[in-house]
């Protein structure tokens, strides 16, 4: 299976096709509902963002608390479509990739095509298994959101399927 590393530059993105399975290694950032709301609010009001969105990969995930002796707890994907209203705006700020589960809206698909982004899905409801692929974990923004804070994760061979590629092709109907 193809292995890819962050940062994902345009050439790497263009070589990935909808339906392809890949292993991702490198740095990714969690962000889900409330973090997206705050990020987009910051973008709209011209405030400084707590992370560099350019070339970044966001994982729609809110992990459990970290059990003693572990790097992270269960950490699978949450439903991506709840982030659809925010996604075109963060893609416009240079976001490169997203990891989640389930389908996306037509607007998101168009925005992915326009900004040459990519949307991956990973094993849904398999948060225990996915925790094996996380090597480092730290909160870097919005700690008051608890599990919805932004975590910086160092991942190794994180299993993904390309769900919408840079040309806008989707594995979902």
């Amino acid at each position, binding site marked *: 299976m193809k292995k890819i590393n962050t940062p994902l530059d345009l050439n790497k993105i263009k070589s990935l096709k909808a339906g392809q399975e890949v292993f991702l290694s490198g740095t990714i950032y969690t962000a889900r509902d*409330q973090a997206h709301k705050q990020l987009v609010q910051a973008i709209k009001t011209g405030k400084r963002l707590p992370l560099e969105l350019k070339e970044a990969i966001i994982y729609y995930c809110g992990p459990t608390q970290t059990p003693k002796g572990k790097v992270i*707890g*269960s950490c699978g994907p949450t439903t991506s*479509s709840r982030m659809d209203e925010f996604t075109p705006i963060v893609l416009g700020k240079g976001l490169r990739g997203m990891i989640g589960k*389930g389908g996306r809206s037509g607007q998101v698909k168009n925005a992915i095509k326009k900004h040459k982004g990519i949307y991956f899905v990973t094993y849904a409801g398999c*948060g225990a298994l996915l925790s094996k692929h996380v090597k480092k974990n730290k909160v870097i923004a919005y700690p008051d959101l608890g599990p919805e804070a932004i975590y910086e994760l160092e991942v190794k061979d994180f*299993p993904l399927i390309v769900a919408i590629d840079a040309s806008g092709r989707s594995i*979902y109907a």
Partner: protein
Amino acid sequence: MRELKAAKITQAVMELVKRANFSLRRDVLFALRKAYAGEKNRRAKTMLKAILDNAAYAKEENLAICQDTGMPVVFVQLGQDLKISGNLKGAINSGIAAGYKKYSLRNSICSDPLSRGKPGLSPCILHMDIVSGDKIKLILLPKGFGCENKSQLKMFKPTSSLKEIKQFIIEVVKNAGPDACPPYIIGVGIGGTADYASLMAKQALLTNITKKNSKLEADLLKQINKTGIGPMGLGGKTTALAVKIQKYPTHITGLPVSVNISCHALRSAGIVL
């Protein structure tokens, strides 16, 4: 009259928190293994394998099966001849909060649905029933919200046909599509009132999903599995593992139908004290 200390209930609830979140139900595992054996689609097989591997790893490592450790829903059947010394509701919520903390589960509960705020571990949703006898039965269903979000209620006309009801149930599943972690378990409540139909739909998820289906359940399952949504929405013939229906008498003026969708990680655990 038999007496039971509320502290015993807190202890028992903590144990249920562990069991429900770390060990997938035996009937659900059985249904998943059967689906894995029956799928020919390569991708569907890969997805089902990941689900089974995840369940094994979670149990072995004492990790939550899913990071969404749910809104804890507790069903209580209280024997009318049992006296609880102490605060029953408080004891249950203490057990939830202490268990979720002890086992490093997720802070998923917003204390106010509108202002949200920093999420915490409790309270749970409590459904109380009074039954005969001097025992208490407690069942915990940690309900993930990806699938709860896809649940629906419809108030049909009393003259509506069975065909229309079936269409509605199938539409609810199609609407969930790939988003809510298929293969699903579909709980359906038919009759009663708006609230009671929804309660039955959720209670239906507690029944053994490998038990023989009624004709209506079997028929719905067959049609749902023809949608081709498949495990994790990536295609295949396993869109649902089971459809479970509960019915109750209703009013001449209506026909409530509620559908509660569960993701493949249908977790629950029960105990009798």
